[in-house]
Protein backbone atom coordinates (compact mmCIF):
# COMPACT_ATOMS: atom_id res chain seq x y z
CA UNK A 1 0.00 0.00 0.00
CA UNK A 2 2.79 2.40 0.95
CA UNK A 3 4.66 1.57 -2.29
CA UNK A 4 1.49 2.32 -4.24
CA UNK A 5 1.17 5.69 -2.50
CA UNK A 6 4.85 6.44 -3.23
CA UNK A 7 4.34 5.57 -6.89
CA UNK A 8 1.29 7.83 -7.08
CA UNK A 9 3.25 10.68 -5.46
CA UNK A 10 6.20 10.24 -7.85
CA UNK A 11 3.78 10.13 -10.77
CA UNK A 12 2.26 13.40 -9.59
CA UNK A 13 5.71 15.00 -9.23
CA UNK A 14 6.67 13.91 -12.73
CA UNK A 15 3.34 15.06 -14.12
CA UNK A 16 3.70 18.38 -12.34
CA UNK A 17 7.18 19.01 -13.75
CA UNK A 18 6.10 17.95 -17.24
CA UNK A 19 3.02 20.15 -17.02
CA UNK A 20 5.12 23.14 -15.91
CA UNK A 21 7.62 22.64 -18.74
CA UNK A 22 4.89 22.11 -21.33
CA UNK A 23 2.80 25.08 -20.19
CA UNK A 24 5.75 27.48 -20.00
CA UNK A 25 7.05 26.46 -23.41
CA UNK A 26 3.62 26.68 -25.03
CA UNK A 27 2.50 29.96 -23.46
CA UNK A 28 5.71 31.84 -24.24
CA UNK A 29 5.91 30.27 -27.69
CA UNK A 30 2.36 30.98 -28.81
CA UNK A 31 1.60 34.20 -26.92
CA UNK A 32 5.03 35.88 -27.00
CA UNK A 33 6.67 34.18 -30.01
CA UNK A 34 9.62 33.25 -27.79
CA UNK A 35 11.32 29.89 -28.04
CA UNK A 36 11.98 28.46 -24.60
CA UNK A 37 14.22 25.56 -23.70
CA UNK A 38 14.10 23.62 -20.47
CA UNK A 39 17.45 23.59 -18.66
CA UNK A 40 17.06 21.75 -15.37
CA UNK A 41 14.97 21.21 -12.28
CA UNK A 42 16.25 21.83 -8.77
CA UNK A 43 14.35 20.24 -5.90
CA UNK A 44 16.64 21.35 -3.07
CA UNK A 45 14.50 23.14 -0.53
CA UNK A 46 17.09 25.80 0.31
CA UNK A 47 17.65 26.89 -3.31
CA UNK A 48 16.01 30.26 -3.99
CA UNK A 49 16.65 31.80 -7.40
CA UNK A 50 16.78 35.57 -7.77
CA UNK A 51 15.20 37.84 -10.36
CA UNK A 52 14.28 41.48 -11.05
CA UNK A 53 10.61 40.93 -11.79
CA UNK A 54 8.48 38.09 -10.40
CA UNK A 55 4.82 37.19 -10.59
CA UNK A 56 3.42 34.97 -7.84
CA UNK A 57 0.09 33.16 -7.94
CA UNK A 58 -1.52 30.84 -5.42
CA UNK A 59 -3.39 27.63 -6.14
CA UNK A 60 -5.78 25.93 -3.74
CA UNK A 61 -8.29 23.14 -3.68
CA UNK A 62 -10.14 21.01 -1.17
CA UNK A 63 -7.11 18.74 -0.65
CA UNK A 64 -4.15 20.72 -1.94
CA UNK A 65 -2.46 24.09 -2.03
CA UNK A 66 0.64 25.73 -3.37
CA UNK A 67 2.05 28.55 -5.44
CA UNK A 68 3.85 29.34 -8.67
CA UNK A 69 6.42 32.13 -9.01
CA UNK A 70 7.75 33.18 -12.41
CA UNK A 71 10.96 35.26 -12.25
CA UNK A 72 12.81 37.13 -15.00
CA UNK A 73 15.62 39.62 -15.23
CA UNK A 74 14.38 43.03 -16.38
CA UNK A 75 15.74 42.81 -19.94
CA UNK A 76 14.16 39.45 -20.65
CA UNK A 77 10.85 40.51 -19.05
CA UNK A 78 10.78 43.62 -21.29
CA UNK A 79 11.57 41.61 -24.42
CA UNK A 80 8.93 38.95 -23.76
CA UNK A 81 6.21 41.44 -22.80
CA UNK A 82 7.00 43.58 -25.85
CA UNK A 83 6.42 40.51 -28.01
CA UNK A 84 3.26 39.65 -26.08
CA UNK A 85 1.87 43.14 -26.74
CA UNK A 86 3.33 43.47 -30.23
CA UNK A 87 5.07 46.76 -29.48
CA UNK A 88 8.67 47.93 -29.46
CA UNK A 89 10.69 46.96 -26.40
CA UNK A 90 11.64 50.61 -25.78
CA UNK A 91 7.95 51.55 -25.60
CA UNK A 92 7.23 49.15 -22.73
CA UNK A 93 6.15 50.94 -19.55
CA UNK A 94 6.80 49.56 -16.10
CA UNK A 95 3.06 48.96 -15.71
CA UNK A 96 2.90 47.01 -19.00
CA UNK A 97 5.87 44.93 -17.92
CA UNK A 98 4.36 44.08 -14.54
CA UNK A 99 0.90 43.34 -15.98
CA UNK A 100 2.41 41.26 -18.76
CA UNK A 101 4.45 39.04 -16.44
CA UNK A 102 1.37 38.68 -14.22
CA UNK A 103 -0.67 37.50 -17.20
CA UNK A 104 2.04 35.05 -18.21
CA UNK A 105 2.07 33.36 -14.79
CA UNK A 106 -1.74 33.36 -14.88
CA UNK A 107 -1.78 31.53 -18.23
CA UNK A 108 0.99 29.08 -17.27
CA UNK A 109 -0.55 28.21 -13.90
CA UNK A 110 -3.99 27.90 -15.52
CA UNK A 111 -2.62 25.27 -17.84
CA UNK A 112 -0.86 23.42 -14.99
CA UNK A 113 -4.05 23.60 -12.93
CA UNK A 114 -5.95 21.73 -15.64
CA UNK A 115 -3.37 18.91 -15.54
CA UNK A 116 -3.56 18.69 -11.75
CA UNK A 117 -7.35 18.56 -11.91
CA UNK A 118 -7.28 15.83 -14.54
CA UNK A 119 -4.87 13.81 -12.38
CA UNK A 120 -6.70 14.19 -9.07
CA UNK A 121 -10.29 14.77 -10.20
CA UNK A 122 -10.39 17.82 -7.96
CA UNK A 123 -11.20 21.43 -8.74
CA UNK A 124 -8.47 23.97 -8.01
CA UNK A 125 -8.71 27.74 -7.94
CA UNK A 126 -6.04 30.29 -8.69
CA UNK A 127 -5.54 33.56 -6.85
CA UNK A 128 -4.95 36.83 -8.64
CA UNK A 129 -1.25 37.23 -9.49
CA UNK A 130 0.95 39.46 -7.36
CA UNK A 131 3.92 41.10 -9.08
CA UNK A 132 7.15 41.88 -7.26
CA UNK A 133 9.76 44.21 -8.77
CA UNK A 134 13.20 44.85 -7.36
CA UNK A 135 16.76 44.17 -8.39
CA UNK A 136 17.95 40.66 -7.59
CA UNK A 137 15.13 39.77 -5.19
CA UNK A 138 14.10 36.30 -4.05
CA UNK A 139 10.63 34.88 -3.44
CA UNK A 140 9.86 32.77 -0.39
CA UNK A 141 6.07 32.77 -0.14
CA UNK A 142 5.56 29.02 -0.19
CA UNK A 143 3.64 27.38 2.61
CA UNK A 144 6.05 25.95 5.16
CA UNK A 145 7.18 22.36 4.53
CA UNK A 146 5.40 22.13 1.17
CA UNK A 147 7.25 20.19 -1.52
CA UNK A 148 9.18 22.68 -3.61
CA UNK A 149 11.04 22.73 -6.87
CA UNK A 150 12.59 25.28 -9.21
CA UNK A 151 12.44 24.76 -12.96
CA UNK A 152 15.11 26.65 -14.92
CA UNK A 153 14.47 27.71 -18.51
CA UNK A 154 16.45 29.56 -21.14
CA UNK A 155 15.17 32.05 -23.71
CA UNK A 156 17.20 34.38 -25.92
CA UNK A 157 20.37 33.26 -24.13
CA UNK A 158 19.04 34.28 -20.72
CA UNK A 159 17.81 32.19 -17.82
CA UNK A 160 14.48 32.51 -16.07
CA UNK A 161 12.81 30.37 -13.43
CA UNK A 162 9.45 29.03 -12.39
CA UNK A 163 9.25 28.06 -8.73
CA UNK A 164 6.57 25.54 -7.90
CA UNK A 165 5.33 24.54 -4.49
CA UNK A 166 2.42 22.17 -4.30
CA UNK A 167 1.17 19.83 -1.63
CA UNK A 168 -1.73 17.44 -2.00
CA UNK A 169 -3.06 16.38 1.42
CA UNK A 170 -4.00 13.00 -0.01
CA UNK A 171 -0.28 12.24 -0.46
CA UNK A 172 0.35 12.39 3.28
Amino acid sequence: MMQQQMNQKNALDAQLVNAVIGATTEVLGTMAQTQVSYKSVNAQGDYMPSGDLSAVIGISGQHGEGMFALSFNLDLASLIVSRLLGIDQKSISSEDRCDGVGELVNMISGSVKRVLSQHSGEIYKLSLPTVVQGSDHTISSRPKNNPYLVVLFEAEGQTFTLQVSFKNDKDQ
Partner: protein
Amino acid sequence: MKVLVTDDAGVMRKVIIRELVDLGISAESIKEANDGKEAVDAVNAQSFTWC
Protein backbone atom coordinates in the same frame (compact mmCIF):
# COMPACT_ATOMS: atom_id res chain seq x y z
CA MET B 1 -17.58 46.51 -38.34
CA LYS B 2 -17.47 47.38 -34.64
CA VAL B 3 -15.85 45.11 -32.06
CA LEU B 4 -16.11 45.21 -28.27
CA VAL B 5 -13.25 43.55 -26.38
CA THR B 6 -14.03 42.78 -22.73
CA ASP B 7 -11.44 41.47 -20.27
CA ASP B 8 -10.47 42.56 -16.78
CA ALA B 9 -6.78 42.38 -17.72
CA GLY B 10 -5.58 45.36 -19.71
CA VAL B 11 -2.67 43.36 -21.13
CA MET B 12 -5.02 40.72 -22.52
CA ARG B 13 -7.20 43.38 -24.12
CA LYS B 14 -4.09 44.78 -25.81
CA VAL B 15 -3.09 41.30 -27.02
CA ILE B 16 -6.58 40.63 -28.41
CA ILE B 17 -6.77 44.05 -30.06
CA ARG B 18 -3.37 43.51 -31.67
CA GLU B 19 -4.62 40.20 -33.11
CA LEU B 20 -7.80 41.87 -34.42
CA VAL B 21 -5.80 44.66 -36.06
CA ASP B 22 -3.52 42.02 -37.61
CA LEU B 23 -6.67 40.43 -39.04
CA GLY B 24 -7.48 43.71 -40.77
CA ILE B 25 -9.95 45.31 -38.37
CA SER B 26 -9.28 49.02 -37.95
CA ALA B 27 -8.19 50.07 -34.46
CA GLU B 28 -10.77 52.88 -34.47
CA SER B 29 -13.63 50.39 -34.70
CA ILE B 30 -12.50 48.44 -31.61
CA LYS B 31 -13.80 49.45 -28.18
CA GLU B 32 -12.70 48.12 -24.79
CA ALA B 33 -14.56 47.22 -21.60
CA ASN B 34 -12.92 46.34 -18.30
CA ASP B 35 -15.81 44.30 -16.86
CA GLY B 36 -19.35 43.10 -17.49
CA LYS B 37 -20.99 46.34 -16.46
CA GLU B 38 -18.83 48.41 -18.81
CA ALA B 39 -19.58 45.89 -21.56
CA VAL B 40 -23.36 46.11 -21.03
CA ASP B 41 -23.18 49.91 -20.95
CA ALA B 42 -21.17 49.91 -24.18
CA VAL B 43 -23.62 47.58 -25.92
CA ASN B 44 -26.55 49.72 -24.78
CA ALA B 45 -24.82 52.82 -26.10
CA GLN B 46 -24.09 51.43 -29.57
CA SER B 47 -24.38 48.22 -31.55
CA PHE B 48 -21.42 45.92 -32.13
CA THR B 49 -20.81 43.33 -34.81
CA TRP B 50 -18.67 41.24 -32.43
CA CYS B 51 -18.57 41.22 -28.65
